């Protein structure tokens, strides 16, 4: 899975998919995950980056990130390679 390159994410956490016209809001952590995905960071690299900034156990982090990615996929923000 990779992030749709057209996705625009603002500083306020407003996410816009210009292909579908859909827009969403996300919190600080969601914005951070999208930013990392945009930089091509995923899996272990992404978890480590998040762990540097947030005090979170690995189990919870992995579950939350995977749930979030599932949501991004449903909204066509993440696409199949």
């Amino acid at each position, binding site marked *: 899975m990779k992030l749709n390159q*057209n996705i*625009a994410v603002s500083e306020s956490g407003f996410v*816009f998919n*210009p*292909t*579908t*016209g859909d827009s969403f809001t996300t919190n600080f952590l969601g914005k951070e995950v999208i930013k990392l995905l945009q930089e091509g960071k995923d899996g272990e690299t992404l978890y480590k980056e998040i762990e540097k900034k947030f005090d979170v156990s690995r189990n919870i982090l992995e579950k939350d990130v995977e749930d979030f990615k599932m949501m991004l996929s449903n909204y066509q923000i993440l696409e199949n390679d």
Partner: protein
Amino acid sequence: MTKRKITVAVTGLNNIDSPGPGIPVIRGLKDSKEFDFRIIGLSYETMEPGIYMNDLVDKSYQIPLPSAGMEPLLERLRYINYKENIDVVIPNFDAELYNFIKLSSILKNELGISSLLPDIDLFESRHKSKLCEFGEKYDILVPKSKMIFSVNELIDNEKEFEYPMVVKGQYYDASIAATREQAISYFHKISNKWGLPIILQQFVSGTEVNVTALGDGKGNCIGAVPMRKMYITDKGKAWAGITLDDKKLLEISKKTVENLKWAGGCELEYIKSKEGKYYLLEMNPRFPAWVYLANGAGQNHPEAMIKIALGEDVPCFENYEVGKLFIRYSYDLIVDISEFEKIAILGEK
């Protein structure tokens, strides 16, 4: 720079909950930096709001309903042209286009009124009832559809179309029927309002996306802007929408306008399926009521249309702003009874 003075007659002044494109077209014209447009409104009813929008419409005239035929329309346009010396006419209703297309050469040669309209064969070919043939001819995906004249025919075609199916009027209205009872009810409701035939169409599940476009009649698509509805009224009309960055949709639309050698404005209505396929539901032969969004996104289609109608070369628009929204609103005009009296009694104001 001195602006060129041009007089343009525009129909579709019914800026109501299911709005005609007239007022958005006029707003596009008024935004022109090159022309100083005098706008002549052509109306069918006394309550069309555009008649009373004095900042947009300089003068209004009633014209005969399309059902009256070409001769009364021509007679009326002769009178209006005598008073106003019209340069270009922009008809904006599906139902009136037949008369305007048929009259276009007389209007040009006798009255000096230009227009940019498709020829009658092309106009007829994209009709809802002929959409399948149209799709085959121009290599466009279209949902299966069939023209019917009776409830018996509806029942006969149940197996072919299955439920849910779309029941459509020949000009306006469409409903999705999930059962035979619903389909029969929509058949009667739509045919009572808009007449026969009724069109049965295969239901395609997906997201509706629309494109407003302009063709120069020589095989060039001068401009095209895709939009997705964000808010829809109970009549299925867009009350808000947003411009999209959808290259495939744009490519299909441009190719369609180019292959057809379409002349004038048009709206292409599609369903984008979950598999990413685009099915053309309708091709409306005039600008949509949301055409001002194209203007807001950087493509002034009405102004470009005027230039083409006047025989000028117009380059194709290269881009537009993605993520631009339109949000419609309603507004109460306060009108003196004398204004209403003028249009009601004299047929002009």
